């Protein structure tokens, strides 16, 4: 089997953006559910949960787009 050619182009920036948004989304959700409670205004709206989920969705989309677009 031929060794694969090393990639000539770096991975698209969208891949890196996706990875960090995804990881941060998970950490924000974890912080909001497992971390120490901070007394905040509008805490009842659970911003860490839904904002973290939005970051995860965007992160997953960007990661997929970046990965599929490599070497294109």
């Amino acid at each position, binding site marked *: 089997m031929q060794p694969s050619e090393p990639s000539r182009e770096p991975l698209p920036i969208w891949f890196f953006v996706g990875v960090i948004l995804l990881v941060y989304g998970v950490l924000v959700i974890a912080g909001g559910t497992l971390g120490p409670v901070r007394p905040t205004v509008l805490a009842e709206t659970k911003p860490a949960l839904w*904002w973290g989920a939005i970051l995860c969705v965007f992160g997953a989309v960007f990661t997929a787009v970046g990965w599929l677009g490599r070497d294109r």
Partner: protein
Amino acid sequence: MTQIHLSAIDWAIIGLYFVFIIGIGLYLRGFTKTGDDFFLAGRKNSSWVAGLAFLSANLGALEILGWTGGTMKYGMLVSHFYWIGAIPAMLFLGLYMMPFYYSSRIHSVPGYLLLRYDERSRLLNAVSFAVMTLLMSGINLYLMALVFNVLLGWGWGVSMWVSAASIACYITLGGLMSAIFTEIVQFFLIWAGLFLVSILGIVEMGGIHEVFAGLPPAMASLWSTTGSSSQNAMGVTWPAIVMGLGFVLSFGYWTTDFLVVQRAFSSKDLRSARLTPITAAFFKMALPFIVVIAGMVAYKLSVRGEGSFVMPADPTDATKTWYDAALPLLIVRYYPTGLVGLGITALLAGFMAGQAGNVSAFNTVFTYDIYRAVIKKDASDAQLLWVGRVTTIVGILLSVATAYLAMQFNAIMDYIQAIFSWVNAPLFATMLLGMFWKRTTSHGAFYGLLVGMAVSFSIFLGFKLGLFSPATAHLITFADNPSDMTRNLWQAIWAWLVCFGVTVAISLVTTPKTDAELQGLVKGLTPDIDDSQVVWYGKPAFWAAVAFVVLVALNVVFR
């Protein structure tokens, strides 16, 4: 004010950011082989990548903190800095100036001055830009350390040295490509980390209409209180906004400042380069949805006298309110564990991307316009690459030194921050004449630029040292007791006018370059762009028109 206490997960989010950006630098090291790779990111970016980097290089955390606080003082007028004070210039750059810049295959803005005029203008601009960039970079570092010292209790040296070392690491490794990658990551982190503040602010106020309800007219409108400088807190009139901000300062910055223009140079082709500032214009117009909304919410909370929302005193001058603290106070108010870490990371990323932008522009201008122009004219590509890497480290160290200087002598901040209008306002006249009037000569450009910079500096010093009588001040600014903002705007207008006038006058009595020497550099001697084969929605002119319509609509809605 009470310091923000971070939990382990907040620290993990902040630490991960540093690991991530240094990791990007290490990864991109393998793709940075030549001078073009290091200084121009290989000239292979799409307009999306270059456009977001173009905007992010300008979008520092200082701007976000400063203008959120500024909204508490000036209200909607702050939006002028995002709309009329940016968009027309960005569109003009993309449509009319970029073909001359990009097609001449230069590495820097001073490089255009060399081709169009001569070595003197190039060197004058290169040196002034290099000094300006380093000093601004140092001020940025100092203010970052100040913010984190007051808000988080971090030692002065910690935030300065950690961020400076990280930037030095990833720029030295990956050059402009690293800077662009991290700037785009920063762009998304700013929206991810700070937009939620505006959303939660709107929710607490009871809806977007409630955010604007009950505001005094001077706070709630863009134009209706600019008939007289006494009607608005900024102390400005509409002619000063249109001419000073919308024309001279805005065009001077967005069309000539290499810090932002360098990102467009990294585009893969001319169409992408032209689309770069046009793409960025849409995102620039959206930024008041973070900055102005958050500022309005902070204003309303402070007016209500909310117990937990008291604006602190300025740490450098206890007699003043520290408006820059508005956004961090909102983060503390709304963000639970985890989100606080993300908000702080967004601010850190903003500070560091601004730093990285300055350093990557500095290393390019020093290497191509000072080192190769003056020190070693026959430097090889490998030598330029090496000089670029060394210059990055030296530039960072000089920035840190400037930051320590600012810490010791706080008064120098005013001088350093004013450098921008000394350098860029007259330069716009030099560029405009150079690109659109082939009769402009090298002598005219050099002396016009020199006199324009001197006039700008003299007006600044005159006001700073109180040398002007009220009558002279009125003659310069057309206002009684002009505000700082009015002085800045008119200082830029005069610098531009004088540079323009002197350049034209001297050009008329000196010999211009021949048409053959100006091919590709001047309107009329450059082939028109033929994009007839491009679909309508792929044309820069189409998207510029859309951006302009959006700009007009925003100004009508918030008039």
